C-alpha cells in the first residue's frame, strides 16, 4: 500500500488494535470473574465462556464502552495501536506538544469520524478533517524524540502491562495452577523420591528378570537409534536442502515449484512430532528400536532439511557468481562455491540434532520405540522406583557427556 491511503491504513489499523485490546481486556476480565464464581468444579468453556450471556443492550454497552476507552487512549496519550504503527499525535504545525483542549476536541471529533464510518478518512486520507478541526495531526513518530512522560506512565506501556497481566491471570486459572498443593503434597511421591535417591545399579549390565535388556544394553540401543536416525537423516536432508533453498532454485519457474514443495514437506513433517510417528511405526513394524529409529529419522530429515536450507540461503553469493562466470555448470558451482561455505554449519547442526535425537529416543521409546525409554516405562509401571532412579541417573549422565562433547566439537568447527 502506498501513497495517500497508507495514511488511512495506519489510522484505521491502529484504531482497530486499540479497540481489540480493550475488547480483549474486558473479555478476559469477564472470564476470570466467571471462573472464580463458577459453582461447579468442572470448567466447561464452551458453555458460557466462549460467548458470555448478555442482554442485547448489554452488548451495545460493551461495544460503546470499548470504543470510548480506545478513543480516550488515543486522544490523551500514545495508545498501544499508535505505538505499534509508529504514529503520535502532534499539533497541526507538527509541534509534539499538544494542548489539553486540543486533545478533548480531538476526542469528540473522533466520534464524528467514527459515526460517519470514517468518512473524513476516505475524503482526505492524509489529513482527515476531524483532525484538522481539533488542530492536531497523527504524524509518524520521530526516532529518538524526547519522552513526554516516563515510560511507566505511558499509555501504551500501561496497556501492554494490563494485557500481559490479565492473560497470565486467566492462564493461571485455566491451567489450574495450585501452588499450595505443590508445596503441601511434596511428600506424596515419597517412594519415588526414595527410589530416585537410591538408584539400584545391580541391573546395569545384567538384565532384570522381567526385562530383555540390561540398562546398559538399552542405553546402547537408544544411542544407536539416535545415531542412525541422525546420520541417515542428514544424508537424505543434505541433497534435499538445495532443493529447498530459494537462492538455488528460484531462477526458473519449475525451480520455484520444487522449492515450495520441498519447504512445504519439511514443514509438514517437522510439525508432526516423532512421538506420533513412533506410535504409527510401532504398529506397522512392531514394538522395538526399529520403529523408534524410523520415527526419529523422519523428523530428523525435516528438521535438518529446514536448517540446512536456511543455511544455503545465507551463503555469500559472490563465489557462486565467480564460479558461474568461469563457465561452471550447476553441480560444479554448488560443489565449488556453495558446499565449502555450508559444511561447517551443517556439521554443527547435525551434532546438535544428535543431542536432540538421543533425548527424543527416550520419549519415543515410551510409546513403543524400544531402547531405554521402553525400559523406563516398564520399570515405572512396575513401580520399581530404585530401577527408575538407576535409568534416570545413567541416562542423564550420558546426555550430559554427549552434550559436552558435541558442544566442544561444534565450537571448534565453526
Amino acid at each position: 500500500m502506498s501513497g495517500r491511503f497508507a495514511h488511512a491504513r495506519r489510522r484505521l489499523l491502529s484504531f482497530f488494535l486499540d479497540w481489540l485490546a480493550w475488547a480483549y481486556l474486558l473479555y478476559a476480565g469477564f472470564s476470570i470473574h466467571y471462573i472464580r464464581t463458577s459453582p461447579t468444579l468442572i470448567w466447561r468453556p464452551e458453555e458460557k465462556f466462549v460467548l458470555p450471556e448478555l442482554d442485547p443492550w448489554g452488548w451495545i454497552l460493551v461495544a460503546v464502552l470499548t470504543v470510548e476507552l480506545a478513543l480516550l487512549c488515543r486522544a490523551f496519550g500514545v495508545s498501544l495501536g499508535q505505538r505499534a504503527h509508529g504514529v503520535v499525535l502532534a499539533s497541526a504545525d507538527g509541534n509534539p506538544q499538544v494542548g489539553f483542549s486540543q486533545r478533548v476536541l480531538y476526542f469528540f471529533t473522533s466520534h464524528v469520524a467514527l459515526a460517519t464510518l470514517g468518512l473524513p478518512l476516505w475524503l482526505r486520507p492524509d489529513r482527515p478533517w476531524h483532525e484538522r478541526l481539533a488542530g492536531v495531526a497523527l504524524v509518524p513518530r520521530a526516532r529518538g524524540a524526547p519522552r513526554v512522560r516516563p515510560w511507566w506512565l505511558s499509555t501504551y506501556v500501561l496497556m501492554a502491562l494490563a494485557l500481559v497481566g490479565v492473560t497470565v491471570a486467566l492462564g493461571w486459572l485455566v491451567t489450574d495452577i495450585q501452588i499450595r498443593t505443590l508445596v503441601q503434597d511434596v511428600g506424596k511421591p515419597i517412594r519415588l523420591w526414595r527410589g530416585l535417591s537410591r538408584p539400584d545399579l545391580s541391573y546395569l549390565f545384567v538384565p532384570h528378570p522381567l526385562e530383555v535388556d540390561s540398562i546398559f544394553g538399552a542405553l546402547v540401543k537408544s544411542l544407536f537409534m539416535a545415531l542412525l536416525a541422525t546420520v541417515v537423516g542428514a544424508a537424505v536432508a543434505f541433497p534435499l536442502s538445495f532443493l529447498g533453498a530459494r537462492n538455488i532454485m528460484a531462477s526458473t519457474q519449475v525451480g520455484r515449484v520444487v522449492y515450495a514443495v520441498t519447504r512445504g514437506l519439511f514443514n509438514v513433517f517437522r510439525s508432526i512430532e516423532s512421538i506420533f510417528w513412533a506410535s504409527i511405526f510401532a504398529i506397522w513394524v512392531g514394538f522395538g528400536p526399529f520403529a523408534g529409529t524410523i520415527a526419529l529419522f523422519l523428523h530428523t530429515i525435516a528438521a535438518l532439511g529446514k536448517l540446512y536450507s536456511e543455511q544455503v540461503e545465507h551463503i555469500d553469493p559472490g563465489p557462486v557468481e565467480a564460479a558461474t562466470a568461469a563457465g561452471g555448470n550447476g553441480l560444479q558451482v554448488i560443489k565449488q562455491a556453495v558446499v565449502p561455505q555450508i559444511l561447517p554449519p551443517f556439521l554443527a547442526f547435525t551434532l546438535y540434532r544428535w543431542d536432540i535425537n538421543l533425548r527424543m529416543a527416550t520419549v519415543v521409546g515410551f510409546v513403543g520405540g524400544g531402547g531405554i525409554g521402553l525400559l523406563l516405562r516398564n520399570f515405572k509401571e512396575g513401580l520399581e522406583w530404585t530401577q527408575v532412579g538407576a535409568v534416570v541417573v545413567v541416562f542423564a549422565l550420558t546426555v550430559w557427556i554427549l552434550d559436552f562433547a558435541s558442544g566442544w566439537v561444534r565450537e571448534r568447527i565453526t
Partner: protein
Amino acid sequence: MAHLAIERLTKVYERGKVRALTDVSFEVNRGEFLVLIGLSGSGKSTLLRCVNRLVEPTSGRVVLDGTDVTRLSSRSLRQTRRRIGMVFQQFNLVKRSSVLANVLAGRLGYVSTVRALLGRFPREDLERARRALERVGLVEKMHARADELSGGQQQRVGIARALMQEPELLLADEPVSALDPATSHSIMQYLEQMNRQDGVTVLASLHFLSLARRYGTRIIALKDGRMVFDGPPSAIDNAKFKEIYGEDAEEVEVR
C-alpha cells in the same frame, strides 16, 4: 571485425521496473583497455554482467568474435564463458577454502562435472595454478585460507583465478574500489600486464577518473544507463566531467 560488439543493449529489472541500461551500443577492438566510468547505479555493473550473461539482457545483442552471446544455449554459453575472465569488486572468493581451491575454480568450465565434484583437477591444471599464483606473487600462500589474506592479496587471487581461464576478454567490475590507493595501482598494473603481454581485451569499470585516465586506452561513460561519452581519456575535459558526474562533482586524484 571488432572483438566485442554491444548492440542496442537494454536491461530492465523486473522488480521495481528499473531501467538499468538503455540502448547502449559500442564496439571494442582486440587488445583495447576499455574503462567504463559513471556514478554508482549508472549501469556499469549491469553492462559487464550482460557480456557473460550473469545478467540476462532484456533486449539487444552481445557479439563476441562474431557469435551472438545472447542467443547461446546454456551449454555453449558455458563454453563461451571460459573465454571471458572476470574480476569482482568484492573478490568473490570462497573465504573458507584455500587459495589454491579458489584459483582452480577458474578451470571449472574446462573440467568434467565428475572431476569437479571429486575435487580432482588434472595435473596440468595444478601446474597452471602454480604459474598463475607465481605471476601474482602469491605462490607461497597457495595453501593458506583465502580469508587470511589482505584485500589486495585476495584480489590478486581473483586475478589468478581469471588467468586460469586463459581468457581473451577480461571483465573487471570495480576491481579496486574495495582497496586503498597504493594497492589499487598494483592491481591495475596486473590488469595492464594481462592486456599488454597476453593481448587480453580488458573491460574495466572504475570509480576514479584518474585511474581511468592512467590505465585506459579508451573511456566510455554511462549516466542513468545511457552512454554519454566514448573516446580517448584525453578528451574528457572539465565540462565533460561535470556532465558525467553532475554539477557538484569534484575530481579526486588517486596517486
